[in-house]
């Protein structure tokens, strides 16, 4: 099994009222792994996600995604790499509210610079895996329930068949029964598509769905304030 994500000597420096620096321990995630990343807010989870997805560039150190050192790529190339290889889902506001569901999905395909061919069929098959009615494709995002929106966000994140899916607190807007249904659908879909999953949450109850659990505090070296 090859490596999906690798961090080496990663440091991220923040300047502000108080200068802070996050130092990450070296870390590897194998392809196809499903990792539960636990951490309280402010623990550096978001920074890590931003670094992995390439929205942030690290102050020093290296990030390799799928054997490509993304931290060394130009901004435009990194944006393009993200579009093609990484899907991201947040706790809310994942979809452009004024577009239809189909257009949201098309947008992802367009920004990844891939052909729109077979898009609808692929979207429909993902929607079937996630228990979504095909009818919602033509609806405006604002007409959907939160649960539906989150599942559409998964469809949209997976439409370009990314090798890696980053998920940040996707269930916090869902009630418990919807949450359990969502979790099993998400994991099944990732299994079927062979996707590497990084699932970030502060909710310890969700641990049970995962074999690998990592605590944010284990990932960070002792924080130094300079």
């Amino acid at each position, binding site marked *: 099994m090859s490596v999906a994500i690798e961090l080496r000597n990663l440091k991220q420096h923040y300047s502000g009222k108080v200068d802070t620096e996050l130092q990450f321990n070296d870390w590897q995630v194998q392809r196809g792994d499903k990792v539960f990343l636990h951490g309280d807010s402010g623990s550096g989870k978001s920074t890590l996600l931003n670094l992995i997805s390439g929205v942030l560039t690290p102050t020093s150190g290296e990030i390799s995604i799928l054997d490509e050192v993304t931290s060394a790529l130009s901004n435009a190339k990194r944006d393009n790499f993200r579009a093609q290889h990484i899907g991201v889902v947040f706790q809310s506001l994942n979809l*452009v509210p004024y577009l239809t569901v189909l257009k949201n999905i098309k947008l992802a395909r367009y*920004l990844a610079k891939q052909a729109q061919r077979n898009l609808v069929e692929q979207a429909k098959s993902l929607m079937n895996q996630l228990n979504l009615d095909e009818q919602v494709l033509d609806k405006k995002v604002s007409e959907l329930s939160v649960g539906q929106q989150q599942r559409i966000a998964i469809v949209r994140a997976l439409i370009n068949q990314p090798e890696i899916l980053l998920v940040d607190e996707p269930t916090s807007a869902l009630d418990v029964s919807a949450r359990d249904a969502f979790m099993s659908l998400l994991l099944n879909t990732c299994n079927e598509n062979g996707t590497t999953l990084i699932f970030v949450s502060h909710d310890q109850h969700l641990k049970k769905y995962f074999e690998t659990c990592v605590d944010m505090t284990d990932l960070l070296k002792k924080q130094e304030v300079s």
Partner: protein
Amino acid sequence: MLFSIAKDSLLSRKKTVFLTFCSLVISLLVLLSVEHIRLQAKESFNRTISSTDLIVGGPSGQLNLLLYSVFRIGTPTANIKYESFQALNEKRLVKWTIPISLGDSHKGFRVLGTNSDYFEHFRYGKKKPLALSQGKQLETLFDTVIGADVAKTLGYQVGDQIVITHGIGKVGFTNHDKSPFVIAGILERTGTPVDKTVHVSLEAIEAIHLTPAKLQKVIADPNSVDLTPKSVTAVLVGLKNKFATFKIQRDISQDPNDRMMAILPGVAMTELWSLLGSVENILRVIAALVLLSSLFGLSTMLLASMNERQAEIAIFRVLGAGPVKIMLLIFVEAILLALSAIIFSVMLITAILYGFEDFLASEYGLFISSNILSLDVVKLLGVVLVATIVTALFPAIEAYKSALYRQLSKR
């Protein structure tokens, strides 16, 4: 794709977008109509008369003479003697003359008494002669040749009988209904006041002003009464040598036998146009300022929406859109809005002009084409689009910056 997203994005903010659209349309209407009417007025103005070196008429103002002899606006104040016209015709340096006798009307269209020289020598536009689309020129006493608009508006055909009234209102003072004129010919459209004119012979003008008894005699036998005109309203003169223009002009104004004045049409036209010109420039400046303020409105609208669009920008970033693409989206939105405002206002103006074309022409002698897309107007619209892009720079740069520093989750 970007285009379709921009469209949906604008549609999702219907109220503000609609108001901005209205403001753009209104300012474009002002700008386009000022520009179009200016160009059209100038063109229609300059094509009205060509090749004529002098216009001779009774003493009044230069503009007055020009207005009634060429544009058929206003009323002639003084006539000149028919003998003066004949003398003018015999001058050595004069190549041709066209006598004009005005003062009567037919259903609101001016009647112009003249002779066959009119059809031979009159020129408009780029030295274009008049041409008949149907029928023949004036041959007998009661023949008339009508302009294209007269024929179209009143639905006349060659051979129809018409009545000429005295005076120039739509209802004349006296209906000369005992003088049955016949339409002998219809002229091709010229886009000048000729289209709105009913042409008759000078003798016919004399005839309709005879007493009813005499008129009956003339109808019975055209040669029984002497119909030599006593006066004409004005004379258009073409010279053999342009250098003689000022000499002839001086001779005419100093003629001991008649009180006359002669004007140079080019000079008088320039004077008339310069009167309109300063108004025109003020209007253009105002129109440009109105448009500028609308464009700032557009830019303000987009800038104000940037705040509520932070989440949207984050989504675009997640999906791999670079800051440049997000900036482009803002540009596309601005251009889309400006372009639809341009298309809508062009259509609206075309429709309005189409509706008022005849009214403007008959009431003001303005021939405004309803086809507004002349080269100058298209160039102007290009300038508007460039101005849109420049003003859209503000929100676009804002979007760029916001996209650059935007992180995935908001914390």
